[in-house]
């Protein structure tokens, strides 16, 4: 074998994403197929996995083998690649009747909470119906082929990786639609007579012949790219083009002929079906996706679907560890020691943020880990909060049996303190002041000690702690919630140990009664209720992220509370204000205002800015949107005031705001994580435990953002936007009497959410650095 042929055979392009997708599809299919076979579904034959795996292998060959690598040098290789994607892989995949096995093969939670709702969605069903309509599928297939073979587009695909991927994706999708009509895989029924398949294939073959003839008999090279690339194996570009045309002609015709013969044999063998269409018409116009669900429920429904949710505490090892009170105390002790180091370094160390633990640990690492933890799990920081560690001692010293004043039993104080915290953050430049940071930590300890020492329960957590309240609101979007595993067990419970406490341990210090708990608000994940419940009926259960905010019935009244609305408003608007105050245009605006108005007192200006942007402007915007939505769609009786209407929609803004918090804090974590080592090294060097490494300090902070960070940030916003739009629609449905009114009311709120999404994207696209934390200049 010559060296260039050897080079050809070893030129593979491994794409991890594609390979993973194909392997995952194979595993899911096999799992589902075996489950269906075990349940006696005779429609699933041993040949089907072979066809499915064959289809996947053909896709892998087309997109990862030397065919892909050499497609830019030889048109015939490119044509072979397209032939595999359009004529071989799709029919093989459909012959495997893959939809049902893939659905049944999914893990139960994913199937029930993701796949089935998606397939049931009216939009998805419409799309499915449209794409499997013979006329639409035929046109899509033919037009895709012709449009991509236009010289301009073809050349673009050859010189741009993105366009090449788009070309292949559209070929595969169009071909899947086309061959779906021909194969009509189980459980679908043909929507037209089987006879229609004959002209369907014949006409497709004819147009394919025309396209291949154009390539084969053209006396000029149609795609200039192939004229510029070096000729391999002494083959001219025109010869290459003619061979490519022949491959398309012969290969395509062969597959069409095979399919025509198969359709003809099917018609021959089933003459009785002529009148009613091949396999009978679909019984309803419900669309293909519903057919899949129906059959999955029929065939897969024999397996008892446990009603229970996924429970973190049920995982061996992790569950046991989390249940132990000692685990919480250990975590609290670790954070207490860390807080001690922060205070020590903040007071005694240099006033240079990036090399001081008080400058980096709270503002870069803790915040980043905190929001990511809330995103993927829940409010675990409150669980490990060091401020509450000496609570028992405080209560012992100061009495600890007074009731929290009635006039303070709301979220007003917490919302105000949270706003004050954001003001202090900007006005005192906390991120750049280790000294202030250290004293805030000390003050926090003192406040929690005194309040918890004087008052009953966890008064500080429930009514005061601004950080805790930030987490309470953020954890409304978290997937985990402390909840009862089985409501029936709670219904028969008479001791209520989860709130009152019992022989197994104290009850909830925040006075949350587990059976009535509908969200994470006020829940510190202390797990006292888990330990107290004698029936082991409390777990850390997984919920759909919007379940907590999309409350129905009595839950809706919760969001009408004005104090709670104020807290949500601060949380949502601060997400934008806190991120925006980091970017150059806003800093420049602030400086220009100070200059033009000759303001010397920056804290005062920041205070006015905070009042305007955290409260006044957002409230006015909400009020105006509520007014507009009421104009567009009449509301149900009872929600008469604009303020009440605005409060109803406010929870819908939480996911988008939380996404921005995550994107913002994760950015700092990802770009400046190394500061921990620099600051730690500096502190150890100060105490003569290590030698100072200047290189570590110089490289640790504010490094250039990797290219993947911005897409990840925007992806977080994408998710937040989708959840917010969905919650707004649920609210609109509740607030109005008809689908048309709900859609009109929702559209007004959707415009506001989209505008906020655009604003968030704009903020994230600005250069964002921790001002003042760059050691060397900046």
């Amino acid at each position, binding site marked *: 074998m*010559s060296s*260039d042929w050897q*080079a*050809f055979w*070893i*030129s593979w*392009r491994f*794409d991890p*994403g*594609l390979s993973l997708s194909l392997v995952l599809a194979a595993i899911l299919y096999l799992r589902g197929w075996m489950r269906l076979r075990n349940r006696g579904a005779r429609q699933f034959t041993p040949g089907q996995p072979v066809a499915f795996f064959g289809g996947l292998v053909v896709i892998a060959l087309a997109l990862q083998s030397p065919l892909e*690598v050499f497609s*830019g*040098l030889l048109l015939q290789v490119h044509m072979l690649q397209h032939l595999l994607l359009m004529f071989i892989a799709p029919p093989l995949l459909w012959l495997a009747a893959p939809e049902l096995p893939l659905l049944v093969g999914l893990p139960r939670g*994913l199937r029930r*909470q*993701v*796949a089935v709702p*998606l397939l049931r*969605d*009216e*939009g998805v069903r*419409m*799309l499915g119906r449209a794409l499997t309509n013979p006329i639409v599928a035929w046109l899509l297939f033919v037009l895709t082929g012709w449009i991509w073979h236009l010289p301009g587009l073809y050349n673009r695909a*050859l*010189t*741009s*990786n*993105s366009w090449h*991927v*788009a070309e292949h*994706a559209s070929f595969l999708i169009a071909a899947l639609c086309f061959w779906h009509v021909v194969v009509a895989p189980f459980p679908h029924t043909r929507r037209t007579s089987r006879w229609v398949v004959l002209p369907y294939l014949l006409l497709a073959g004819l147009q394919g012949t025309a396209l291949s003839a154009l390539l084969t008999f053209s006396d000029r090279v149609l795609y200039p*790219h192939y004229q*510029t*690339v*070096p000729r*391999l194996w*002494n083959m001219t570009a025109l010869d290459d083009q003619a061979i490519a045309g022949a491959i398309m002609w012969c290969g395509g015709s062969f597959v069409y002929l095979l399919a025509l013969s198969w359709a003809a044999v099917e018609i021959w063998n089933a003459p009785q079906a002529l009148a009613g269409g091949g396999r009978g018409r679909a019984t309803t116009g419900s669309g293909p996706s519903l057919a899949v669900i129906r059959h999955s429920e029929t065939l897969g429904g024999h397996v008892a679907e446990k009603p229970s949710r996924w429970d973190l505490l049920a995982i061996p090892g992790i569950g046991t560890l989390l249940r132990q009170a000692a685990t919480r105390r250990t975590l609290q002790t670790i954070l207490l020691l860390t807080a001690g180091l922060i205070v020590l370094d903040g007071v005694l160390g240099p006033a240079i943020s990036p090399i001081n633990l008080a400058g980096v640990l709270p503002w870069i690492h803790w915040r980043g880990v905190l929001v990511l933890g809330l995103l993927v799990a829940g409010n675990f920081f409150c669980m490990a909060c060091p401020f509450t560690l000496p609570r028992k001692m405080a209560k012992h010293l100061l009495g600890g049996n007074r009731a929290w004043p009635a006039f303070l039993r709301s979220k007003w104080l917490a919302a105000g303190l949270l706003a004050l915290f954001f003001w202090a953050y900007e006005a005192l430049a906390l991120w750049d002041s280790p000294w202030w940071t250290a004293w805030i930590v000390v003050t926090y300890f003192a406040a929690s000690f005194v309040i918890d020492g004087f008052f009953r329960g966890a008064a500080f957590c429930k009514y005061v702690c601004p950080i805790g309240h930030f987490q309470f609101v953020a954890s409304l979007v978290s997937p985990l919630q402390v909840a009862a595993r089985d409501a029936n067990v709670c219904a028969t419970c008479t001791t209520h140990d989860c709130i009152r406490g019992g022989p197994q341990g104290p009850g909830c210090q925040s006075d949350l009664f587990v059976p009535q708990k509908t969200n994470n608000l006020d829940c510190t994940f202390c797990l006292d209720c888990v330990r107290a419940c004698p029936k082991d009926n409390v777990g850390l259960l997984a919920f*759909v992220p*919007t379940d907590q905010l999309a409350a129905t019935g009595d839950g809706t009244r919760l969001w009408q509370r004005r104090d709670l609305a104020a807290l949500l408003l601060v949380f949502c608007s601060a997400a934008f204000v806190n991120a925006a105050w980091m970017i150059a245009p806003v800093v420049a605006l602030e400086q220009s205002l100070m200059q033009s108005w000759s303001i010397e007192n920056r804290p005062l200006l920041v205070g006015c800015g905070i009042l305007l942007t955290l409260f006044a402007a957002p409230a006015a915007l909400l009020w105006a949107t509520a007014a507009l939505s009421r104009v567009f769609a009449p509301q149900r009786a009872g929600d008469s005031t604009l303020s009440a209407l605005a409060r109803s929609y406010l929870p819908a803004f939480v996911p988008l705001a939380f996404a921005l918090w995550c994107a913002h804090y994760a950015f700092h974590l990802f770009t400046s994580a190394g500061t921990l080592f620099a600051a730690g090294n500096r502190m150890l060097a100060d105490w003569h435990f290590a030698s100072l490494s200047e290189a570590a300090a110089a490289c640790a902070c504010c490094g250039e953002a990797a*290219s993947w960070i*911005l*897409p990840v940030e*925007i*992806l977080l916003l*994408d*998710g937040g*936007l*989708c*959840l917010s*739009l*969905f*919650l707004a*629609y649920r609210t609109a449905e509740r607030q109005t009497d*008809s*689908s*048309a009114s709900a*859609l009109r009311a929702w559209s007004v709120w959707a415009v506001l959410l989209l505008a906020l*999404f655009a604003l968030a*994207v704009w903020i994230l*696209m600005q250069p964002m650095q921790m001002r003042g934390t760059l050691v060397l200049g900046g």
Partner: protein
Amino acid sequence: MPRAWIVLLFCVSFLCSGVTAFADGGAVVFSGESGPVRATLFVEPVPPRVGQFDLSLLLQDRDSLEPIAAYGAHLTLTSEAFEGDLVEQIETGMDRDSATNALLQSALIETERAGRWQVTLVVDQVNGGFHEYSFSFPLELVPRRARFWDVAIWIALPLIPLLLFLAGRIRRVARELSD
């Protein structure tokens, strides 16, 4: 339902992540002969932009056009801020390991300077020989695209679930109105 849409969004984004993959290949920027060899250089992306770009070389026998396997290749890129004023020079070797196509050798180059560059390619040790063959050609690097275009696909992702969602709701409204 919202979880379904989010998972769909992430699946689509996972598949889209492959779009940005960098690879050797792309368009031919130079083809020329020197001594017994013919060199063709490809650039990716097209047009080459500041930031990272990839230059790949296919070396062939001038007469038979048979690809040559054994040779060394070195690139020197010299930027010209304006006529004759040397402001930046990049030197790099090319190798087969960084090329997906085993017929090629390639080099990944990174610069922040847009404008006209002069590229000099020196090929030596062709099939173990001692001769050096030199090629020179200009290369125009266009400025970086607006940052928005690098993430436009990510920004537009919610459109897919949003449009599907809207289509379903509008259909429901239409059905209710017709009833």
